[in-house]
């Protein structure tokens, strides 16, 4: 028994859910009251010629909302007229008061335009749509006509709008590659840089004190270990890693210290002994 109830309700609602308009009509009259245009609104296709209003005209729209099957007047929960500008994507919604019997009247007086009208700075036609919604019926949306209003001021720009526009694309510029100087200059510079060595060796040949005991067994190990250190550093430059050179250097320090102590002690005693 109970399972039949929702099915019955569904059947009832399916039957009575369609709405329609009865005698929809619009009238355009000017400030003196004489009618400029008066025609019925077709529910199937919108009016072919747009409705044009000047600054003093009045547009009156009248209709009655009824159920399609029974013809009874219905007061729907939501009745709106939507003015939509396709090009600028601005829209305005104006609610329409509908009586309990479904009769509705909408006045658009251009002397006192409602706040819900979208701005029309360019004179583009606004698409006017009637939207009716009700929880007991299917909603309907009817395109009435195109409306051309007198030019208005443009919509005010939001103060923060400039910061939301897309920024110019980032163009990365990189420092240009280094240029090598031309070859002859490089060669001359290389020769100039090595020239001081020639000066050094030539002057040293004139001035060098004779190292008397360079190869004596007390001094030679020190000289060799110093040379080994230099060789280790050169090896580090070409091949070794930091950890390795530090390790080898630490290992090499031990014989160097001992050799140095003996070598310098012998030189010192020689110096003091001679003195």
């Amino acid at each position: 028994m109970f399972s039949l109830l929702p099915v019955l309700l569904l059947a009832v609602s399916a039957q009575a859910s369609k709405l329609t308009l009865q005698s929809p009509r619009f009238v355009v009259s000017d400030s003196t009251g004489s009618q400029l245009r008066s025609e019925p609104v077709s529910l199937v296709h919108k009016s072919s010629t747009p409705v044009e209003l000047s600054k003093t005209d009045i547009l009156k729209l009248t209709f009655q909302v009824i159920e399609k099957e029974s013809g009874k007047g219905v007061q729907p929960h939501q009745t709106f007229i939507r003015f939509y500008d396709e090009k600028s994507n601005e829209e305005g919604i104006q609610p329409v008061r509908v009586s309990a019997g479904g009769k509705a009247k909408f006045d658009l007086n251009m002397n006192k335009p409602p706040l819900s009208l979208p701005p029309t700075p360019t004179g583009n036609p606004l698409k006017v749509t009637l939207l009716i919604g009700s929880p007991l019926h299917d909603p309907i949306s009817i395109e009435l006509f195109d409306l051309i209003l007198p030019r208005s001021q443009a919509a005010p720009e939001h103060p923060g709008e400039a910061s939301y526009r897309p920024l110019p694309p980032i163009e990365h510029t990189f420092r240009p590659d280094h240029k090598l100087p031309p070859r002859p200059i490089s060669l001359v510079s290389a020769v100039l840089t090595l020239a001081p060595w020639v000066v050094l060796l030539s002057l040293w040949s004139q001035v060098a004190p004779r190292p008397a005991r360079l190869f004596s067994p007390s001094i030679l190990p020190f000289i060799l270990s110093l040379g080994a250190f230099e060789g280790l550093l050169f090896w580090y430059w070409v091949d070794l890693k930091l950890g390795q050179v530090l390790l080898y250097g630490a290992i090499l320090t031990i014989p160097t210290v001992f050799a140095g102590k003996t070598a310098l002690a012998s030189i010192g005693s020689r110096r003091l002994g001679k003195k």
Partner: protein
Amino acid sequence: MPPKATQAAPQNAFLTLWKAYNDNTSDRLKFIDVFLFFLMLSGIVQFAYCILVSNFPYNAFLSGFGSTVGQFVLAASLRSQVNPDNKDEFKDVSPERAFADFALGSIVLHFFVYNFLG
């Protein structure tokens, strides 16, 4: 007479200085002096190249120039500590100790130079 004397005066002074230096400096000190002169020349040439031609491998310039300057400082301090005329200044630093300092400092300097040379 006076013009000739004033013209010759700076030349004379320089020649006198050079003669005194040559006669009074021992061979060992001259040895170090030649080394110092070589380092100065080398540094000047590298710096001139960097300014005039290109500083392209900048790290190479820095390490090369830094090596001449650092070695100059170490050699100059060695010379002043080894000079017998300065014995009173450096009472507790024997020439051998000075040389050991010089060797250690040079090795550390060379390590950093090689590190940066690239």
